[in-house]
């Protein structure tokens, strides 16, 4: 079977909308277009019924109660509401004090949508500890325990990393936080919908996820807010009509929310099948590439990773030129070279991956639509492109001559 080009292998960035999801959404644009807050006519009721159903489906995916789901515009907003809202609610000292409002723990390789809200809180008088991950990228309970202080009010650790797919010790960290009476937030954008999630047994207080990473539409997300043991409260970040029980004002994106709910239901139904199939394809990809090329490194923990994600560094070739050699395959580069900044990925650097390897890293994100034929095509073309570039690489020559390129005094330019 001929492979249809281009091939999409960037499912950690976004996913296509599942046809089942689109079908569920369509009536809510045209005939069921009501405002779900309109309480006095059938248009409003039917929109509200769609939202309620979606809330049940979203809650079911993570074993929460529908009352614990707050609709947002996506994970960035969910993270902002969780972190800023919890910090403002649980602060130790009033805002007028110089610092001392409370301590927050997070990790250096979190998404910017967690790091930047925490940095803003630091400017507003909160303290924060940014934990360095170990080389395998897995944040563990002991690291959080070591960073705890008497005034720690919030811990925010992602469930699975977006660049390397490593899975943190989230249930264990959640248990620790519950023992200590600290609020625990997890950015589960890459995890939920792909892997089984149970906010009760996994000890989660606040959990962010997004529609477009789970074959739903863009522009809609959710925040789980625990209602009992403990009851978590937040200071709203968006004021207005008091929607979402005052947590998040603003007319609901009804078609988006309906799609989010349908996407959650599809994930509940297909999760096991998708996971097993994608893990086999990912292993095929990794094994074939490492067998055919030397000096290749799979970043992050060897096994404790999302089944559909792999991040591979190719020594002695540069990431952007590698992408150019596989231009029919849509992947993400660890190097930010395509933008004006020449900084390699802060996540890979955070793991201690050398700059020269971080520059030459590709993230492959497999998904529901990925086929074996596409993976075979990818293996063949990645190997070909790396060999083509290594034939041109002075660094590869030096490596073969036994010269350690890290010991050379390079002229900075």
């Amino acid at each position, binding site marked *: 079977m001929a492979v249809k080009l281009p091939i999409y292998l960037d499912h950690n960035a976004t996913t296509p909308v599942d046809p089942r999801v689109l079908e569920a959404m369509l009536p809510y644009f045209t005939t069921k277009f009501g405002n779900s807050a309109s309480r006095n006519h059938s248009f409003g009721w039917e929109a509200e019924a769609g939202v309620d159903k979606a809330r049940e489906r979203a809650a079911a995916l993570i074993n929460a109660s529908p009352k614990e789901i707050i609709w947002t515009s996506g994970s960035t907003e969910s993270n902002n509401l969780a972190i800023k809202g919890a910090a403002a609610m649980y602060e130790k000292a009033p805002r007028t004090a110089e610092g001392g409002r409370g301590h927050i723990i997070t990790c250096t390789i979190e998404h910017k949508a967690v790091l930047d809200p925490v940095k803003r809180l630091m400017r507003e008088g909160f303290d924060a500890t940014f934990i360095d991950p170990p080389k395998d990228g897995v944040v563990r309970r002991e690291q959080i325990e070591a960073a705890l202080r008497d005034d720690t009010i919030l811990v925010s650790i992602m469930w699975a990393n977006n660049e390397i797919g490593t899975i943190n010790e989230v249930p264990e960290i959640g248990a620790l936080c519950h023992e200590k009476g600290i609020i625990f937030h997890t950015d589960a954008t890459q995890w939920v919908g792909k892997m089984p999630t149970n906010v009760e047994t996994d000890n989660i207080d606040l959990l962010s996820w997004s529609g477009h990473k789970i074959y739903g539409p863009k522009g809609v997300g959710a925040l789980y807010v625990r209602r009992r043991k403990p009851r978590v409260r937040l200071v709203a970040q968006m004021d207005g009509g008091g929607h979402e029980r005052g947590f998040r004002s603003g007319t609901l994106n009804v078609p988006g929310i309906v799609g989010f709910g349908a996407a959650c239901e599809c994930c509940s139904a297909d999760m096991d099948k998708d996971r097993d199939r994608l893990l086999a394809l990912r292993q095929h990809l990794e094994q074939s590439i490492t067998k055919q090329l030397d000096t290749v490194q799979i970043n992050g923990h060897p096994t404790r990773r999302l089944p559909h994600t792999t991040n591979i560094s190719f020594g*002695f*070739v*540069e*990431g*952007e*030129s590698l992408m*150019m*050699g596989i231009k029919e395959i849509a992947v993400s580069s660890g*190097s930010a*070279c*395509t933008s*004006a*900044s*020449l*900084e*390699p990925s*802060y996540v890979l650097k955070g793991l201690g991956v*050398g*700059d*020269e390897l971080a*520059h030459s890293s590709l993230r492959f994100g497999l998904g529901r639509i990925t086929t074996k034929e596409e993976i075979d095509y990818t293996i063949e073309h990645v190997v070909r492109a790396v060999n083509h*570039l290594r*034939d*041109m*690489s*002075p*660094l*590869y*020559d*030096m490596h073969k*001559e036994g*010269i350690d*390129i890290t010991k050379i005094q*390079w*002229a*900075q*330019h």
Partner: protein
Amino acid sequence: MAYSEKVIRHYETPSNVGSFGTTKEVKEKKDIGVGIVGAPECGDVMQLQIKVNDKGVIEDAKFKTFGCGSAIACSSLATEWLKGKTLDEGVAIKNTELVQELSLPPVKIHCSVLAEDAIRAAVSDYKKKNGLEAADDHDHQHPQIEAVPCKTNAN
């Protein structure tokens, strides 16, 4: 980012890839000048080698480049242009000429600067080896001409 057709052609079928021997071997060869510029952590390293005959004409040129498509294209084009030129004509090649020929966007200008640096470094290496006075480029080991700094907005 869309690359120009010329950049893509140089990337796919580069001219004059290679070297005139290992690092050690070329050090011994008096008719070879070597320039290595850039740094791996900046995402580009260019190695340019020129073979100069007794009339002071660049007979042959070879390159190896670790870098983006534009960096590869700049070095490939530079080797094409260098062949048949005298040393003085060689160092007269300007980065702006490479930019124009390859239609490089502003973010890729540093690739052309690097290629110009590599030419000067190779010529300078040849002159040093042969005891020739490097008249117009005495301390031009690694000229710093409008290079985009590598370490921008580190966080």
